[in-house]
């Protein structure tokens, strides 16, 4: 008679995974010197309390408010200009990187040949490189290269976001129904025509939606980059924090929240309208 096994076949794998997780967790905790209790220690609480109590009242003198207004506009402008540049770079590279326009794939039912994959790899590699280096590193480098100010921020956003946009655009082009484009390519139309007539109509909604979402992220990113000298609200926070001017920091944070909220609303409106 067959002895029915009473053991769960998944038990071994689960046990191994648990042990692996623990084996990785322990040195991880050591390396990161994790100690959440620090936040609750008395003298640290006092320090945080002292720091945050300086937040009230937020600075609201006319001169500072004018500075704040200009910094907000600068942040918005950096994000928008950066995205514009990013689009300029992303659109052609995404077209090059996307297998959607591969002539080989059109005649093989969507499967790109070895050559077309090989030729597209460097473009994809470039996009991955551009988006993998954190944008603030680019910002830091550009600040050293072109000096303090919003230019560094614009360039940093342009480079990183072109990578992100390019990669996602290429993926979107590949994920919509390929058959219209394939039919056009097989009938002898040029690649760009095939793209505009075959792929863009179905992909446009998603592309626009993602772009607007990225613009929203770019606003937050430009604040972060301001920290290292790329202008806008971020630079102001950095300056105010160095001077321990809690009230100013509070005002800037409030302006930041307002900006993020507005951007969120605008983004939802645009996505509803255009997509």
């Amino acid at each position, binding site marked *: 008679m067959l002895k029915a096994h009473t053991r769960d076949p998944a038990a071994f794998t689960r046990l191994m995974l648990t042990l692996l997780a623990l084996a990785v967790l322990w040195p991880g905790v050591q*390396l990161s010197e994790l100690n959440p209790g620090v936040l609750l220690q008395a003298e640290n609480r006092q320090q945080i309390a002292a720091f945050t109590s300086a937040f009230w009242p937020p600075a609201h003198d006319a001169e500072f408010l004018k500075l704040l207004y200009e910094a907000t506009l600068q942040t918005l402008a950096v994000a928008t200009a950066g995205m*514009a540049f990013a689009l300029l770079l992303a659109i052609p590279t995404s077209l090059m990187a996307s297998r959607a326009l591969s002539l080989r794939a059109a005649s093989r039912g969507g499967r790109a040949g070895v050559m077309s994959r090989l030729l597209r790899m460097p473009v994809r590699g470039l996009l991955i490189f551009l988006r993998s280096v954190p944008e603030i*590193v680019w910002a830091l480098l550009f600040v050293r290269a072109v000096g303090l100010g*919003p230019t560094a921020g614009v360039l940093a956003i342009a480079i990183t976001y072109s990578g992100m946009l390019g990669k996602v655009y290429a993926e979107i082009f590949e994920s919509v129904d390929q058959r219209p484009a394939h039919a056009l390519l097989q009938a002898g139309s040029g690649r760009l025509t095939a793209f505009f007539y075959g792929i863009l109509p179905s992909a446009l909604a998603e592309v626009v939606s993602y772009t607007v979402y990225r613009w929203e992220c770019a606003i937050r990113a430009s604040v972060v980059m301001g920290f290292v000298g790329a202008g806008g609200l971020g630079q102001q926070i950095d300056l105010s924090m160095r001077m321990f001017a809690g009230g100013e920091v509070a005002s800037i944070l409030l302006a930041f929240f307002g900006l993020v909220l507005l951007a969120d609303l605008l983004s939802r409106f645009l996505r509803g309208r255009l997509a």
Partner: protein
Amino acid sequence: MNRVLNLLVVCAIVAAVFAAFSYLELDLKALTGDGGLGQMGAYAERFLHPDLSAEHLQAVAHGALETLAMSGLGTLLAMALGLLLALPAAGRFGWPLQSAARLLLNALRAIPELVWAALTVLAAGLGPNAGTLALALHTSGVLGRLFAEALENAPAEPAAAIRLQGGGQVAAFCFGTLPNLWPQLLAYSLYRWENNIRMASVLGFVGAGGLGQMLYTTLSLFQEAQASTVIIAMLVLVLLVDALSDLMRQRYVRA
């Protein structure tokens, strides 16, 4: 009517872009002409010879592991805290708690990681602990909100069936709702981990340890060769985490 409105919106966007450029007065000519490009080229060239000495590599490796630990643990803590806050935020415990939880989650996620890091460095001192806590706090706000939305959209029948046969609330949640929810939670968390590994590099700028701190010091001391090694290490880390996250997604989030 719709078309006209859409056209207006597009025109408004184009106008906004032009306005942005003119406001910034980007002096691209100064950038590229008059030896500007040459200067940037010379600066970039200094990065093409990374310092690969054993001693520096060891320091970079330690920094990389620190950054990896910061991002991983920060995301893990955020998952736990996020799930904890998502339960009231999805309305499981009544209306007043729901509002309070949503408010807390919005506060946690509205404050950018860098600002959190500045606060935690103040509280916990310099080093990776501050970075991990900052990431955990911010990400728990993000994940908590995503988890709450997923929780609200999860089907209620399996958990209700378990309650109907006498099971407790916790058992009903774990046996009924969690199996359906888990792939979505994991997908969001992996996505945030990919984001956090990039942010962890950056938090070092305010003193929260890891590769970021190394990059800041080397750049400030104009040690481009050493900085270049750090940037390569950052790149490798990001690619590694992206690959790992992709692997885990294939394995556990197959929908």
